[in-house]
């Protein structure tokens, strides 16, 4: 039995689960549960009202069904909406008080929470199920006036900022999953960069789902004030389970005048086993608002995990001269499905956007790029460039490209290119002739195919991502 488990873990090394006592909200979705969550987090009244308003809308909204990957109906009453380690009834004040089991978990995941152990300057906010367990390098950041903490803490300590910006990009009148998140979100990260500050280190959140039967609904809010810069990383893993787990997060980015936000994701949720059993449903809403002039938001994502990935990190280019970028690698293997892409909504003048999307599908998987480029009549002199390439491995998988292009302004240019191909025998032959075995050869070629996107990632992540690309495709050739 033990061996069998180890055998399984070879494929997905983050698939272990931590045996820790949990403190959960009662199962089901209703007003009481929302009040419970709000109460346990000692939230102010306005936030509870806001949640309840969102919940009221959830009740009348229907789940969208236009997406390509279909999934069995989710029973929202059969989920836990709040789950936290028992030791968190009172939040530990420092790492010394933290349950050693948690520290061990994060060490195992390669995310040591102990600041001394970290070689690279990355500040981490670690989210375990529904709560944030630790945030590192707080002191260094505070010196600069940067606020980096869990969103629960921000609600307590910086209510004005939260109140001003929460829901300003993803309102509670949005689609089903986003609104559900607004009603029941539990924790997540909050970042505020004061005017003129360049954040000295990468900020990072590590999401971990541990408890079973839980949905993870975290909320991230990043505000870059005038002239500031921040690079933010997000990583995710989950244990291997035979059931499907829902992850419906909301991420809101706001860039004011001359500010820049770089948001990178390496998503490696448990993808399910070889027969498509289990895995995470990753239905995430990510949206960035370039509110000020000359602002810039850049999304980079490496999507290798999840049974179903369904997300479109978007940019609303409201400020004049603002820039939106989207770089994506999505890899699906076995029975994974992905429907991902971006939306670039040009509202301001002289706005620019760039979309580079690389999709790789292998095994029995299905991959869809779906994107929208919308240039409004007032958005003069704007331009967009889109490139989406797909690579297919075998004829049991699918690769689809569905771009929506709307140009309503004659001074603006949109260019779109897409190709679909496979790794050619010549390329493989060339590599093998030089002593690589076929898997190494494929990994090399795929990395080359993805290079444009990989080089957008911060250094530490790029190495990790490159490995991940190789691992995700293992066994897909021959």
């Amino acid at each position, binding site marked *: 039995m033990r061996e069998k488990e180890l055998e399984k873990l070879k494929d997905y090394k983050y698939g272990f689960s931590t045996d820790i006592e949990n403190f959960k909200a009662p199962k089901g979705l209703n007003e009481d549960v929302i009040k419970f969550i709000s109460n346990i987090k000692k939230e102010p009244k306005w936030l509870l009202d806001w949640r309840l308003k969102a919940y009221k809308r959830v009740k009348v909204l229907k789940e969208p069904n*236009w997406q390509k990957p279909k999934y069995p109906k989710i029973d929202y009453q059969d989920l836990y909406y709040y789950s936290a380690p028992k030791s968190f009834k009172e939040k530990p004040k420092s790492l010394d008080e933290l349950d050693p089991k948690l520290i061990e978990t994060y060490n195992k995941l390669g995310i040591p929470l102990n600041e001394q152990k970290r070689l690279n300057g990355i500040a981490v906010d670690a989210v375990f199920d529904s709560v944030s367990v630790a945030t590192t390098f707080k002191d260094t950041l505070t010196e600069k006036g940067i606020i980096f903490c869990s969103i629960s803490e921000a609600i307590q300590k910086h209510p004005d900022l939260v109140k001003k910006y929460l829901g300003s990009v993803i309102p509670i009148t949005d689609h089903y999953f986003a609104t559900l998140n607004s009603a029941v979100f539990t924790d997540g990260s909050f970042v505020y960069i004061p005017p003129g500050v360049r954040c000295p280190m990468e900020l990072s959140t590590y999401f971990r789902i541990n408890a079973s039967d839980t949905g993870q609904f975290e909320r991230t809010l990043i505000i870059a004030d005038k002239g500031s810069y921040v690079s933010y990383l997000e990583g995710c893993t989950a244990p291997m389970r035979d059931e499907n787990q829902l992850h419906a997060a909301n991420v809101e980015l706001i860039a004011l005048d001359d500010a820049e936000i770089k948001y990178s994701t390496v998503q490696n949720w448990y993808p399910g086993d070889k027969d498509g059993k289990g895995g995470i449903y990753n239905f995430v809403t990510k949206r960035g608002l370039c509110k000020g002039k000359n602002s810039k938001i850049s999304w980079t994502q490496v999507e290798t995990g999840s049974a179903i990935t369904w997300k479109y990190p978007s940019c609303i280019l409201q400020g004049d001269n603002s820039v939106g970028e989207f770089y994506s690698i999505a890899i699906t293997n076995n029975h994974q499905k992905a429907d991902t892409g971006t939306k670039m909504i040009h509202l301001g003048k002289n706005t620019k956007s760039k979309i580079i999307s690389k999709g790789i599908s292998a095994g029995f998987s299905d991959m869809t790029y779906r994107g929208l480029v919308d240039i409004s*009549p007032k958005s003069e002199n704007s331009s967009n460039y889109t490139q989406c390439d*797909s690579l*297919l*491995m*075998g*004829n*049991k*998988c*699918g*690769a*689809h*490209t*569905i*771009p*929506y*292009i*709307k*140009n*309503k*302004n*004659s*001074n*603006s*240019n*949109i*260019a*779109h*290119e*897409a*190709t*679909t*191909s*496979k790794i050619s025998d010549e390329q493989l032959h060339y590599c093998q002739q030089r002593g690589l075995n076929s898997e190494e050869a494929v990994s090399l070629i795929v990395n080359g195919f993805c290079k444009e996107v990989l080089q957008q990632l911060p250094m530490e992540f790029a190495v990790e991502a490159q490995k991940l690309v190789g691992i995700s495709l293992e066994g897909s050739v021959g």
Partner: protein
Amino acid sequence: MQNFKTDFEKTLKESNLSEKEIAFKNLNAKEFSKQGFPNRKDEDWKFSDINQIIKKEIGELKFYTGQSKETNIDEDVLLSEIKHNKLIFVNGQLAQTDFSSEEKSKIEFLDNKNDTEDQSVENSLINLNNALANKSYKLLVKKNYQIKNPLIIYHVSSNKVASQNINLKINFELEENSSLKLIDLVKDKGNKNFINIFYNFSLEKNSVLKNYKIDQFENNNIRYMFNNIKQSSNSVSETFYLSKGSTFSKNEITCDLKGEYSSAFVNGIFSLDKDKHHEIKAKINHLVENTKSYQLVKSVLENKSRSVYQGKIYVDSKAQKTDGYQLSKAILVDETTEFNAKPELEIYADDVKCSHGSASGSLDENSIFYLMSRGLSYKEARELLINGFLVEVINQITDEPIKKLIKNLYGLKNEY
């Protein structure tokens, strides 16, 4: 929809149909009543909400055509530039047939073919057509026969009809080694009608179909044309759209490449102004190995006009070695125009070569400057650039005399 029900019953009562046909029509009428006109909630009609457009442009639509047969054909409708066979439909009723230049035994035009075959379609406009088209016609080109002169189908409406729904359905069958050159010419005098034309093509081995749809002349009708093409091995279909004259037009084409080495070409021009809204929606299904498709659509948009291009390449997992290509380009001449595109790829086979491109933007200022510095006026420079842009599509036409004819009709000089 109340209007539709009473008009449909009235039409049915006056027609002389077998029980089977009545059942077929009833079924389709029921389906249409249920669905109604497509609206923007349908993914296929996302950019062109025909329900709204009909409401706005026509208001109350009449579905009952009555028995009044117009057979008067204005001579000025006919084209004299080219020798051709004729089929003339006035207000959706067959008025004249002329195949005099062809061998009688080799080409057949049947007007008593009512098909009752139930195709399950997810398109309520086809249901509407099936329910109301008074006859469905069939054109048969026999084995090994190559049509000598092109066939021009004139779609004429007289100035007496207004706010009327006109339906027409023709089935075409091209037997082995045959070929057909077909021009659809729209000449409307009718006022604000909704014209719904549905063609079914069946292309046997080695057959060649060339279909040119010309909507050049100014009219204020709402038009929907659907070409459903099924292709056997080695067959070729070439479809060309000149989309210009109608207030609203949507040309839809579905090509099923069911035989190896079959190929489909879809080319189109939008040349729009004055609030016009036109769409081309192409879906090419590559179902077997070694098939090829090519789509090229260009738009020039002025004065509050809007064009939409939805192209889809579907490649089945069996269809290895597919070669699929799509390109759409648009020039937005002024600020009031809009170009929407949705070029889609849906691919389940790995050894394929599929790509699409889409570009839209304004006229290139540098090119205009270049031409003006060489003595052209702004207007001339602009015209030269636009014509040069569009003529690339017309040059895809493989039939020389027809290419010449279309250039003439469009008003392009031969040097392009």
